[in-house]
Every structure is written in C-alpha cells, then in structure tokens.
C-alpha cells in the first residue's frame, strides 16, 4: 500500500491524498487503539527527568509566532505585532522582558511517589455543559 504523502502546499481538498490516507488506515483505527499503548514507558527512569519537551533553553530573540509556516524567516521577537496593512496594534508600554526561568523538574532525581488525582475536572460538573466549544 502506498504510504500517505504530504499534502501539497496550500491544498484545500487533495482528494487523491485523502483516499490513500483514509481508505484503509484512517478511521478504522478510531476507537480501536489499545488503551495500554505506551504502558511501561513510565518505568524508564530518564522520563522523570525531562522537563517540558518543547523547552529548548532560554527564549530566543528570533522566534517565529506559532502557526508560522515552516521555513518562514522571522524577525526579532515582537515583530509579529507590526502590520503590513497600515492598521493594527500599536505598541504600548511594552514590558518585553522575556523570562528565562528554567523549568523545574529538570534537575531533580527524586523518586516519583503516588499521585493525588482529581485536581482537574471540577469545573465541568459545575458548568452544566461539556468542556468543548
């Protein structure tokens, strides 16, 4: 079976691609994933020492805004607030200081203990609606 290919740039429908991607491997997997996927990885000690995996050290001054297409050249931090259309947000009393606080949990080698649970989810029961939008 041919492997799924990358959608062409700016493709909005890509029928042929979708037929390949979804024809066999797509929705058939839905609800069929074994709940134990990944079970056992927690025993790997090094996992406990990772911080947020997207953390790459101090914020850079040339970061692109999230959602920027890959390969786009980005200017200094904050440049995304400039507008090419003549309108847009004007810089106010910017406090552009970026934090360089290192995430915690990176250097400690403490042994994990038993977790508390239930610290998330209480708002759902009190809101009377689902958590989606």
């Amino acid at each position, binding site marked *: 079976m041919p492997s799924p290919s990358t959608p062409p740039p700016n493709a909005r429908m890509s029928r042929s691609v*979708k037929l390949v991607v979804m024809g066999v491997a*797509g929705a058939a997997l839905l609800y069929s994933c074994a709940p134990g996927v990944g079970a056992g*990885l927690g025993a790997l000690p090094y996992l406990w020492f990772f911080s947020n995996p997207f953390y790459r050290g101090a914020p850079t001054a040339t970061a692109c805004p999230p959602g920027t297409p890959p390969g786009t050249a980005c200017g200094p931090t904050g440049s995304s607030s400039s507008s090419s259309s003549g309108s847009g947000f004007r810089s106010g009393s910017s406090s552009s200081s970026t934090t360089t606080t290192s995430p915690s949990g990176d250097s400690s080698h403490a042994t994990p203990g038993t977790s508390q649970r239930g610290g998330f989810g209480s708002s759902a029961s009190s809101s009377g609606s689902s958590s989606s939008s």
Partner: protein
Amino acid sequence: MRRETITPRPGWQQKLEQIGLDFYVLDGKTYWNEQACYAFTSDQIDELEATTEELHGLCLKAVEYVVSNRLWERMRIPPAWADYIERVWRRTDPTLVGRFDLAYDGKSPPKLLEYNADTPTALYEAAVVQWYWLKDAKPEADQFNSIHERLIEAWRGILRRLPPEALVHFARFADHPEDLATSEYLRDTALQAGLAGKPLGVAEIGWNGRRFTDPDEMPIQVLSKLYPWEWMVREEFGVHVLTDTTAFLEPAWKMILSNKMLLPLLWEGFPNHRNLLPAFDSEHPDLGRAFVKKPIFGREGHNVTVVGPGVFDTAGGDYGTEGFVWQAYQPLPVFDGNHALVGSWVIEGKPAGIGMREDERRITHNNSRFVPHYFEPASDG
C-alpha cells in the same frame, strides 16, 4: 452558496456507525443531518480559505499585543500566569487546531463571530464523516477539507520536536460523545503520524509533587487536552502547570484567543476590517441597533443574548461571572428556516476545511445539526 434537500444514503446510520460516529442523534434530536447539504462555488471556498488565513494572522498579532503589553487583567487571566504564557508563546510551543465561527451568506464578506481556539469539537465530523458522505453522495464534487492530512502532518512536526519514546496523553470526558470523538480522532491522527498516544479522563490526571502523571504513575510529557484553559487556571492543579514540566496542546497562549475579549481587541486593532464586526467591552453606539452580548468565558452558546428591533434570543447557562462583551449583530443566513454557520478549521495555523452547522435558533449550540457540504471545482481547472 445554497442549501439542497437530498435523499440520505441507504443505510446511512450503519455507515456512520462503521466509521465511529454513533451520536448522529443527540438528546433525542438529529445531530448529523444528511437530508440536506450545503453547496458552494469554488470562488466562495477561495474566499473562506483566504478569510480564515487572514483572521488567524490577525489573531496572532492580538496575542503578541496582549503579551507585550501585559493585558492580563483585561483578558481576565490571572497575572500569576503571565510569565508562563509569555514563555510558551516566545518559544513557539506548537498548536494543532482551532475553529473560526463565521457568518457567511456567499455574497458578503465572511464575518468573524468567535474563535474556538482551545477546545473545538466537531472535528471528526468535519474531517472524516462528511468526507465519506461526499464519496458516496457527491462523488463528482469536491470538498474544502484537508483537515485529516494537515493534522497528520502537524503531528509529524511535533514528533520531530520530541525526544525518543515520547508519549502523548489525550485527556477528555468520555461521557460527552462529541468530546470523546474529537479526542480519539486526534489520537488516531497522532498514531498515524508515528506517535504513541494514551487516553485518560480529565479527572484521572495526577500530580505526584513534581510532575503530572497518568493513572499508571507514568509522567505526562505532552498532554492533548479537551478541557478549557480558563477552567484549568482556577482549579486545584492549575498552579502546577506553571512548573512547565508538561507540554500542552493547545498551548496556554490559546487562552487569549478562546477568550471573547479577543473580539473588542481585534476591532480596536483593525477597525472596519472587512471580516470583523464592531465589538466592545461595554455597550457602545457603534454597535448599531442590534447586538449580541456574549460572556467573556462562555461555551456552546450558553448565556449569549441577541437583542435588536424585532429580534430577541437568549440561551441560559452559568457563564458570565467574568463579564461580557458586546458585538454588533450579524444575522446568520437562513435557508429553509435554518440559521447556517460556517465553522472554518485552522490546522497548525493554516486553513484546512469547513464544517456547516445549522439550527432553527439564531444562537448556535453544541447540539446544532452538522450538515455536510461540497463545492464544484472551477471548470477551468
């Protein structure tokens, strides 16, 4: 743009169940409706695509504006979260999905009603279910829908940023079928991209004093959550997010975009933009004679009120304690008595497809019917 009355596919319920959509009836009412479909021209699809890209660009500028000027109080975001949100924003933690709700009649420019940027649902219906409908019912036509491919590609990008053996957890409430379908579909696309994924309930998320954990005491490195940031912020475990030991999808800066205060902010930054409606954080003369009052943190149409000459609709709920915004009223187009709403999907920052919802009421809510769509490709190819 038009609404066509059509004959459902023979055995359509079984067809839906075979691909995992078993909630085509919700609360005793039709949710998936294939007795009708919406038809667009290629030019109209072009306009929706361009508008979606434009609006997402404006929204990114709004995030930068809020972060740079520390408008946390205005956004009703606790200041204690400021540094964390800024850090996540600056280092470009990835984003997967969002959905603009647009008022569009096929003639006038689409208008932004709101951005469901944090916990959008009806993703599976838009990406997969209506695609299979198209293959069966309108095989000669096309559909604005590359959601599935773009999701897999987005996950591949995330995979490249993760360490070996990384695992993504998917948290949701399993007793809400539309939430479960959206979360499971996201997990499915992650698996197809080569990632390992593990589901859990929101209330099963644990904290062991150093890290978030799953019920097997496995550390949660990346959490795809279908649970709103504004709820997480105020709950017991919210403060532990600030340790930044877990990555979240969607990232915390989406708190700024899923917030209705975004609407007046955009109108201030881009007044009279063709795709924006006048919006303010209080009643304002520029609203005109008809307006919509929306809770700053609201979901599924709850506590939304439409007021105007000869027009009134309101939806109950428990939202609004953080305040409201006011937006000029843009009536949804009505087809055969149905108010039609365009949900335009953004995957990894790019427009990816649409899903149509319709309702007898002016206010769209979570049980509003999903109706498939198609368009005729331009004949000049």
